[in-house]
């Protein structure tokens, strides 16, 4: 699946720990849209995120953002080139207050779409808690701060790893609204989710990851209404087939 308007293109990406490959020839591409990567535990979803942002070195393949190769670059180069990251577990800085999390990035954000003030406008709750430490926030507030921090990079692509993890349903609603809002503003969002319901709400396209590759892609409705597909790819729901599979096997050049 290669698109002419691709913002992010991942080709034959390989990453491993020692001798074992976790990403094994993974390919996909996306434009300015929201895309979710779903899959069972241990399929390499977080490894994919960490490789995209340069936390893990790729052992093969290519990552291109707007045509520029980013694989093999340092995390700071990749972030500046335009991939912002909301990692699993948020990874806030316990020594810093909410305000300081944003202030440390304020200079480069000056005069652009997302400044600390714009983030506070988006998340008024954070403004109320601006002098609290990152560790004193509720799970939802922590996620808002992690998203706000990523927004300050003013990047064309935001990668979110398990953003709904541990969040109350109302907070997930807020997250969904923000992702939609970002896409409407021209920011692409790549979400990695284990929670299928959240993934379907967060993204228009669902890429299914199996053993380090993208095996298939579906729309949210397809995946939600087909327990057999859920069972086959995600290990949940019933195995009973509900008609012919309409999901497309994901192959290069599709």
């Amino acid at each position, binding site marked *: 699946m290669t698109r002419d308007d691709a913002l992010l293109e991942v080709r034959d990406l390989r990453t491993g720990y020692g001798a074992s490959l976790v990403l094994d020839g993974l390919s996909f591409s996306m434009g300015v849209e929201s895309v979710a990567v779903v899959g069972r535990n241990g399929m390499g979803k977080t490894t994919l995120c960490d490789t995209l942002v340069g936390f893990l070195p790729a052992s093969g393949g290519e990552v291109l953002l707007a045509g520029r190769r980013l694989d093999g670059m340092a995390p*700071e180069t990749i*972030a500046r080139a335009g991939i912002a990251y909301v*990692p699993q577990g948020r990874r806030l*800085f316990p020594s*810093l207050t909410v305000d*300081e999390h944003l202030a440390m990035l*304020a200079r480069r954000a000056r005069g652009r779409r997302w400044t600390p003030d714009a983030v506070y406008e988006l998340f008024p709750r954070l403004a109320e808690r601006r002098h609290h430490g990152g560790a004193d926030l509720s799970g939802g507030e922590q996620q808002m701060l992690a998203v706000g921090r990523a927004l300050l990079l003013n990047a064309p692509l935001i990668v979110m790893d398990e953003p709904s993890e541990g969040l109350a349903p109302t907070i997930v609603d807020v997250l969904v609204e923000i992702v939609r809002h970002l896409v409407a503003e021209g920011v692409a969002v790549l979400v990695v989710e284990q929670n299928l319901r959240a993934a379907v709400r967060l993204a228009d396209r669902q890429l299914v990851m199996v053993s380090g590759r993208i095996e298939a892609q579906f729309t949210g409705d397809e995946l939600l209404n087909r327990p057999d597909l859920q069972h086959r790819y995600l290990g949940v729901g019933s195995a009973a087939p509900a008609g012919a599979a309409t999901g497309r096997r994901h192959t290069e050049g599709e």
Partner: protein
Amino acid sequence: MTPALTDVDRAIRRNRAAALRRPPVLVAAVVVVAVAAWVLLLADGTPAGAAADDPGKFLVTALDAVTFAGLSFVAASGFTLIFGLMRTVNMAHGSLFLLAAYVAIRVQEAMVGRSRNIDPADVGLLDWVVPLLAGAGVAAVLGLLIQQVFLQWNEGQEMRQTLMTLAITVVLADQMLREFGGLAQRMVWPGTVTHFFSIFGERYAATRLFMLAIAVLIGVLLWLWLNRTSIGMVIRAGVDDRQMVRGLGINIRRVFALTFLVGSFLAGVGGVLGASFAGAAPGTDGSWLLNALVVVIIGGLGSLKGAAAGSLLYGTVVAFSPAYLPSQYSYYAIIMTFGLLALVLAVRPYGLFGRPA
């Protein structure tokens, strides 16, 4: 595992750890109370005598403790700053301390126009401040050079970095012996601060308070730098999670270089203060590296607050032990330092303000 279970696990682990530390906390409390009672009421026959009988001596000892703590803080703050961010135990910290002292002494001699028996009356404030900046500047540049030439290629290899800085220490010690000789030398305080005043009938040197004032000033400036500037916030964030800082587009190598520069500058300022306070000689590098290590182990590696608290505790033990141990035992004052270390580590294994790496 669900998040709820993880939280329960964490709580159980926390409780178990807290239970394990209860006996040491009790011991520490008993020790503190016993020491206070000893110093206040029972210390007859010690060089200072019971504090209740001789409050003047007590006050002077307390001032000694705080002023020595000031010097220790300056020496240890740069050390802890570098360790906190880079996880490098910079064994060359003592060498930078001593080199700055020697350089400052030479510059002061050149400015005053005499090489020995300099009278403080001939030393203006500038004749002390300019050598201070020169000595600390040389230490800062050398520190940056060490970081750029040797350490940045071995990022993340802490043991290798530590051994390299240890090797640099040996080389520098030899070169300094060749260049500056083996005799103890002294930086002369400016005449304006060299006088004595009287508290409770005890004479006290104003230079010690001057040294404390500089330490406080440095502490305040460092605090402002780390807490009120964006680069300071980046450094603190880097202490928490270096990789995530890089993931936000921040070039951590530049931050490392700046931290090494500032940390080495602080080592230099400590060296010049130390040379004014107690002189500089071969071996001073090792003893001040040890002082800095003790302070940061007590306070917790990587924490500025820890460096301040560690310096105060260390200064207290260093000043009070010789004054309040029975005369025939005051030789054993150094052992008290290790007692303090053992006690703090038993109660807080990562130091007072330290966190697991």
